[in-house]
């Protein structure tokens, strides 16, 4: 239970930093030459990086990037994937066939590899990062939504709705979507965790935000060169990523235990 409280605290802090960070008097790109590589202390907080920029300020700025990218991608990829999956599962036929073949093509590539290549070809930058990750990410939601709908559309309440002459749009959105919401929410929670790592990973490779903008991933890359003299440069953003992803995974596990009936008898 304590772990769960910690997770919620971390996630709230992350959201607060992301949403209200720009309102704070922070200067993530301000260079203080006298403070270069200063380690964390009670007066210097989290310390300074190789250019003399305050790590705390950069951490808050990076929180915004990771939050926006993670939620942005899951929102775009999730809503697109779920819509496609719902329609393919419900209507079947040619549309389903074509959708499944397209999904098969996407699944032939390891996801993160495709995202790296796409981001690389489209050029660095946050917009392209979101596009690349969304292009790769919708497939999972589409598959999940489709498989759930396939098993649910034979239910009596759907047959009853059809018999009553309910429009197909209403059946899909009002009678099917709420039933598959639980597994989709669980998938999205783990999806956000995955996207935090993906954004940081791509930024680590230099494919995300561009300097001097701060991202947790690019902060690790900058710090890797100074590991011997200033390990805090790698520690600070790394711990932040780990705490956020850990909390999201813990939350996902909890949600699965509560919402997903099938896993209840196992754990």
């Amino acid at each position, binding site marked *: 239970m304590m772990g769960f409280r910690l997770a919620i605290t971390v996630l709230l802090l992350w959201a607060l930093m992301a949403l209200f960070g720009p309102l704070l008097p922070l200067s993530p790109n301000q260079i203080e030459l006298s403070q270069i590589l200063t380690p964390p202390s009670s007066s210097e907080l989290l310390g300074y990086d190789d250019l003399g920029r305050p790590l705390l300020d950069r951490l808050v700025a990076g929180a915004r990037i990771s939050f926006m990218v993670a939620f942005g991608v899951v929102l775009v990829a999730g809503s697109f994937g779920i819509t496609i999956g719902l329609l393919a599962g419900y209507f079947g036929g040619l549309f389903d066939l074509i959708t499944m073949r397209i999904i098969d093509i996407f699944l032939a590539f390891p996801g993160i*590899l495709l995202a790296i*290549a796409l981001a*690389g070809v489209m*050029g660095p930058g946050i917009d392209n990062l979101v596009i690349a990750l969304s292009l790769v990410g919708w497939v999972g939601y589409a598959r999940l939504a489709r498989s759930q709908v396939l098993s649910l559309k034979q239910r009596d309440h759907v047959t009853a709705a059809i018999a009553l002459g309910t429009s197909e749009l209403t059946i899909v959105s009002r009678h099917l979507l709420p039933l598959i919401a639980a597994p989709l929410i669980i998938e999205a929670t783990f999806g956000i965790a995955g996207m935090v790592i993906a954004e940081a990973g791509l930024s680590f*490779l230099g494919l995300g935000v561009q300097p001097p903008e701060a991202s947790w991933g690019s902060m690790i890359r900058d710090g890797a060169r100074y590991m011997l003299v200033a390990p805090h440069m790698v520690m600070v953003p790394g711990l932040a990523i780990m705490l956020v*992803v850990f909390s999201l995974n813990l939350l996902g596990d909890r949600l699965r235990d509560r919402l997903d009936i099938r896993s209840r008898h196992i*754990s």
Partner: protein
Amino acid sequence: MVPGDPVEVMLGESARPADREALRMALGLDQPILSQLWSYLKGLLHFDLGYSLHSKQPIADLLLQRLPATLELTGAALLIAVVIALPLGVMAALYKGKAQDDAAMLFSLVGISIPNFWLGPMLILLFSLGLGWAPVSGRDAPGALILPAITLGTALAAILARMIRSTLLEVLHEDYIRTAQAKGLSRHAVIWRHALGNAWLPIITLLGLQLGALLGGAVITETIFDWPGLGSLLVESIQKRDYPVVQGCVLLISIAYVVVNTLTDLIYGWVDPRIRLGKI
């Protein structure tokens, strides 16, 4: 269409327009995009992936040079993942709800949450710079494989340990396990031979599916450790805007992924006699 003109990268910004045009024509970049695609696909049929814009070497040669290092790294990571996950998952299942289970599941959750681009530098800091046990980077020094393999294998070990635990928990309640216990088999034999015998199928499925994540992770791991594999070639080529090489890397890694997943399907029948082909 694509930002970053390879011709500009090759000749520099000060090149004369006439030279640029000449190079563009020599590279075939003045052709319509569809005819460029067609000639690329024709080349693929006889393993001609074109030439690197940067080093002018045939791309197939470049890929073959780098392939062994990536195979070595992913193979070692896979091995490490199984070696860590098997005892951990079994322990967690046997001591379900007890401290051992909690510890194993905590490790697993941390392992899933730790990004490899952070774990790698941390391992370097501790074992290379701090204790001096392993080289910082490269592939030549003895023991160079260990840190990259741990970096790449940890997340997979964590996922695998969880799955082994839940599979075992399902199987342990089945009648044949009770029968095995009743006829006096040792606990060891019941777990490793009878219970795990049924767990191999989901394990192999998971390993096949996770290979994609492993190959993607290899890109980052190879970059951290300067490991001369396909992943670092991919990142170098992206930075140099050497698009034909990027294409070649993605193609080869994806083919490897598809081939391995096909192999996993074939292994099913060998591991589990119940789904052997021809008996349906």
